[in-house]
């Protein structure tokens, strides 16, 4: 224990050295929580990048009269990025695969004119410099450059990382002590206020006492946390937005007449830069031009929903063609779409496994997976977050022992992981996990809620990113709320699996089907991403997302913050730790016109409060720079440079 503490301290000291030595031209890389140094090649500054992004066509574009998008997609011209084929990398094969796929699709779509000949067919195409060649025909794509996080160090970043555990930087002792102290004070004062409130009958919360003979509706702790901790800083969440959730949003300001117990919307609004929405590919930004003309006609032919379950009268041709497209997109035989992402997990899992089966779940899995697993009646065990070795240990143990008490063999074992972990920003070590899963012949379920559309050269998610054949994953699940600007979710798998789920999952048999409007929205978004709309908008969106997120992450790490997660992931959590900093960060950011999400208990462990920055393809490089300026200001104000200094 002591040794561990010492180690931690040592690491912190190392972080302390980081800022000093950075100026001396030594390249420091924070990787897996430890420090590696690479002589020479200092990190490229954003200034350099700005100079490389000099294509005149790629500066700004107008959307609805507002400057929205500068084409930062040309990114940096680093050695490795410029010559993608020179890297020995598992993507080479995959890219060949995907390019072959897109050749076939483009052949199928030959009737629709090519991008260069018909720029007017989709008005979004002139947001980007004209494409000179179809990428599928010219082998490795050249026009869209992708910002490789550590491209200067050959070989290091070729593989998607996360082959070991521990991207998380440990909390410093100072932060830990002050955080616990902060909660202690909050809880103490909460109880004091409760006490005096009861004594004098002057509490805002007196109505909560139950009628005689009834148990209180809420147990002490649940209620106490909400009343005395959450309500104090309630204004940091649920800020209503009154515009499209794009790169810039208009947020309604709220007032509270009773110290944040109730929040009332006012007429005042505030323009903010949006770093909070899951609008990864920016479809909320250019919806008017990219999707509107394809979604609106659905409203003429259909109502907004069919008010019926899929197996009754809730299947429309929109559903059918969306399912076909999703299956083709993720590389599976068939797919099934659901009305709600949460419901997709919580109704599919019980259909797949039940009593006598075992679910082996990553410790950081999303609440919907937890709900589905609990509802299924299967036994649930967990393995250490993202650790294939731990998974193997748990698997060996489980198979060898069999069911508890009876020791009979398990009926099925299902391993559940996510593509990108939404609170950690970490990318799944899918390759390692698939190896283990294959070796033991168990089933694998991958939740791609955040990774589909956001990861991989063509946005096909974690399989493409990790270089895993989709056939090695039994069930691919994803949602449409994030990258596709829609709603609901899908399950993709073998035909038999989908046919079975159609009949066995409550989401398909009982619950109302996905809105037809949303179906056509997602269908259109997918077509754009796949490049089947005749432009390369999709590819540019994917590249822009990656460049933006890597730039943002690199700069935040440089600032000396504790940043969780991996490069290439669009979710960038920055640790705040102290409960007071949650509110302070959110409010100060909002005052400065930055809409950013802060997360505390119960979504995270109680000491690991964080702010979660979600980058979008809809952000221009200028907007990212502006956001970074504001964040740097806040970082100084709130002392968040925990990587440089124990005390932040």
């Amino acid at each position, binding site marked *: 224990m002591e040794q561990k503490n010492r180690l931690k301290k040592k690491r912190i000291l190392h972080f302390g050295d980081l800022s000093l030595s950075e100026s001396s031209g030594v390249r420091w890389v924070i990787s897996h929580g430890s420090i590696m140094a690479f002589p020479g090649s200092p990190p490229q500054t954003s200034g350099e990048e700005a100079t490389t992004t000099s294509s005149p066509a790629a500066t700004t574009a107008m959307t609805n009269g507002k400057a929205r998008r500068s084409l930062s997609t040309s990114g940096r011209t680093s050695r490795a990025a410029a010559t993608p084929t020179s890297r020995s990398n598992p993507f080479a094969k995959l890219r060949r695969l995907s390019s072959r796929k897109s050749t076939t699709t483009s052949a199928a779509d030959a009737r629709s004119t090519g991008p260069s000949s018909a720029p007017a067919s989709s008005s979004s195409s002139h947001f980007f410099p004209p494409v000179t060649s179809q990428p599928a025909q010219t082998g490795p794509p050249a026009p869209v450059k992708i910002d490789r996080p550590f491209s200067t160090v050959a070989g290091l970043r070729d593989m998607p990382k996360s082959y070991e555990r521990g991207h998380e930087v440990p909390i410093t002792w100072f932060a830990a002590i002050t955080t616990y102290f902060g909660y202690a004070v909050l809880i103490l004062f909460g109880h004091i206020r409760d006490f005096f409130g009861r004594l004098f009958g002057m509490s805002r919360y007196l109505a909560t006492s139950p009628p005689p003979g009834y148990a209180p509706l809420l147990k002490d702790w649940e209620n106490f946390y909400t009343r005395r901790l959450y309500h104090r800083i309630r204004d940091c969440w*649920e800020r*209503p937005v009154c515009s499209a959730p794009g790169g810039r949003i208009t947020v309604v300001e709220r007032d509270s007449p009773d110290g944040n117990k109730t929040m009332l919307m006012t007429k005042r609004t505030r323009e903010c830069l949006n770093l909070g929405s899951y609008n990864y590919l920016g479809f909320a930004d250019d919806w008017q031009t990219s999707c509107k003309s394809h979604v609106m006609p659905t409203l003429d032919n259909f109502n*907004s929903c069919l008010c019926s379950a899929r197996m009754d009268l*809730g299947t429309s041709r929109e559903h059918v063609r969306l399912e076909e497209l999703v299956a083709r997109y993720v590389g599976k035989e068939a797919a099934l779409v659901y009305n709600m992402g949460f419901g997709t997990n919580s109704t599919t899992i019980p259909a797949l496994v039940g009593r006598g089966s075992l679910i082996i779940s990553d410790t950081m899995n999303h609440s*919907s997976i937890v709900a589905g697993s609990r509802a299924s009646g299967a036994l649930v065990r967990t393995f250490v977050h993202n650790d294939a070795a731990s998974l193997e240990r748990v698997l060996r143990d489980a198979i*060898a022992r069999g069911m508890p008490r009876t020791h009979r063999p398990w009926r099925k074992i299902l391993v559940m992981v996510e593509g990108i972990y939404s609170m950690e920003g970490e990318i799944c070590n899918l390759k390692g996990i698939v190896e283990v899963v294959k070796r033991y012949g168990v089933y694998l379920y991958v939740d791609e809620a955040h990774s589909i559309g956001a990861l991989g050269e063509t946005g096909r998610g974690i399989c493409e990113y990790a270089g895993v054949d989709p056939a090695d994953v039994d069930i691919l699940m994803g949602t449409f709320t994030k990258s596709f600007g829609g709603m609901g979710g899908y399950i993709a798998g073998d035909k038999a699996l989908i046919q079975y789920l159609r009949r066995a999952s409550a989401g398909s048999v*009982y619950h109302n089907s996905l*809105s037809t409007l949303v179906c056509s929205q997602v269908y259109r978004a997918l077509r754009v991403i796949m490049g089947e709309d005749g432009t390369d908008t999709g590819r540019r969106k994917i590249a822009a997302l990656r460049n933006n997120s890597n730039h943002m992450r690199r700069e935040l790490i440089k600032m000396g913050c504790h940043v969780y997660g991996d490069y290439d992931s669009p979710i960038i959590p920055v640790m705040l730790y102290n409960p007071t900093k949650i509110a302070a960060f959110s409010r100060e950011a909002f005052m400065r016109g930055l809409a950013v999400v802060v997360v505390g208990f119960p979504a995270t462990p109680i000491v690991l409060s964080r702010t979660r920055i979600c980058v979008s393809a809809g952000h221009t490089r200028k907007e990212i720079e502006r956001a970074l300026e504001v964040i740097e200001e806040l970082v100084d104000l709130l002392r968040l440079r925990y990587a440089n200094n124990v005390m932040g």
Partner: protein
Amino acid sequence: MAADPSLGDSFIDLTIALEQLWQQVRRELSRDGVKEWLLGAPARYKKWWLHLVEHAPGHVVVETALILFIIWLIFLRKTVDPSKEDSFLSEKEIDQLVEEWQPEPLVPGPDPAWDEEDAQALVVEEVDGTRVVVNGKKMINMASFDFLGLAGRGEVKEAARAALNKYGCGSCGPRGFYGSIDVHVMAEQAMAAFLGAEEAISYSDAASSVSSTLPAFAKKGDLLIADEGVYEPIQTAINLSRAQVRYFRHNDMEDLERVLREVAEEDRRLDRNEREQRRFIVVEGLYKNFGDLCPLPALIALKRQYRYRLYLDQTFSFGCFGTAGRGLAEHFGVPLADVEVMSVSISHALGSVGGMCVGTSEVVDHQRLSGAGYCYSASAPPFTSSAAMAALALLEKEPELVTKLRENAVWLARALGKIPGLEVRSQEISPVLHVGVAKAVSDGWTREEEERVLQAIARACVDAGYAVVTSKYTLLDVEAVSKGGLLPEPSLRLAVSAVHTRAELEGAVEAIRRSAAGVLKKHAGGRKGG
């Protein structure tokens, strides 16, 4: 070496005593003394031992045996702990076990019947009021739960269009994290105002609203008394809550009272304080799987008497009952305050997408942190809230829709009741109708047989231009029957709407009559022939 009792209790006396004590200890432990004592030890021990053997040999034997036994017990015995038995498996053995283990297939293998079914699935191509185009054929919709016909109303569509123009499609985030669009908040306020509740909270799916709400309040150790006929989302909610659950016979208030009395008796017997458990009675307003209403006044009397809270799911009854469509409480004229937690749906009567939970601020506020489907799921696209608000405004403006729906439901139920060979199992006023094969006809049939017949009738209706479906249950629920699960009787499930014209309903009745006659005749022939 005890302290001298003659010492006084003053401080000085104490120090003197301590001093003396210390001197004595030092003397005892002085180097020579200890050495002497240690050197003399073996001799003393030998002497003692010989003395012992001489005077009490029995002791020596017994005690030696005991000591050996203890040594054996502690050090030599192989501990066989059944729970850790297999921890002795070697890596090689584990490898072998892994090799031997064969999991069941993930799902039951492909079934050729499924291909056939999928090929015949009803695929909607166009919707216009009660008219739909299914598989290229125009027909009358008798299956969608668009009870008031609001989904297709121009005002509602216009609201959706305006919202799409303003906000785009998705909301791109959970409600807590910049996924709250102002229309979400406004729709909640409108719903709360319409129902006269303090607050409302919206979920992006009606079923998830139900299955998230209950587990937010009922936890392990709490008690739920549920109707055994509740539909799947409530069943899931009960599962997720991990609370203790007892069922009463479907819609049987006497049975409910029996259960409540049993619990009260148990309380007395175990001296249990009823204030320690959160207790809910869980019912549906209009039972989806039966088409009957929950007898709310009797239920509320019981709940008051035995001091339970009431969870009422109005997914299907909201908008369909009461003078202005406020649902069951209005229908029976009981105050809404008697229902502590209530779920309503905006994806049925209001023709949009999603569900809501209404109640006091305490009830609603708690769910904003604890309702899993609210907290951890992206919110519904803003157009759904706009459409729901427009539909709600229409409902407020035109309460006669509810009356019209009632008239249609009653007319249809009566007309269907006259069809020979069929019987209406739902209540007359229910807009969800369950029609089964009359008991006299289906006497001696298996469940599959009846399902097949009803499926054939539904198919014949579709061919005749009326979209009629049978009630379907998941393979899991069907499977569960063999393990004691309950499954409602098979039926044709019709949904009537306020905008169905009398001619359309007459046509539907005629189509069902003809189809039923044809199918039943054929089936009877087949049975005789077989």
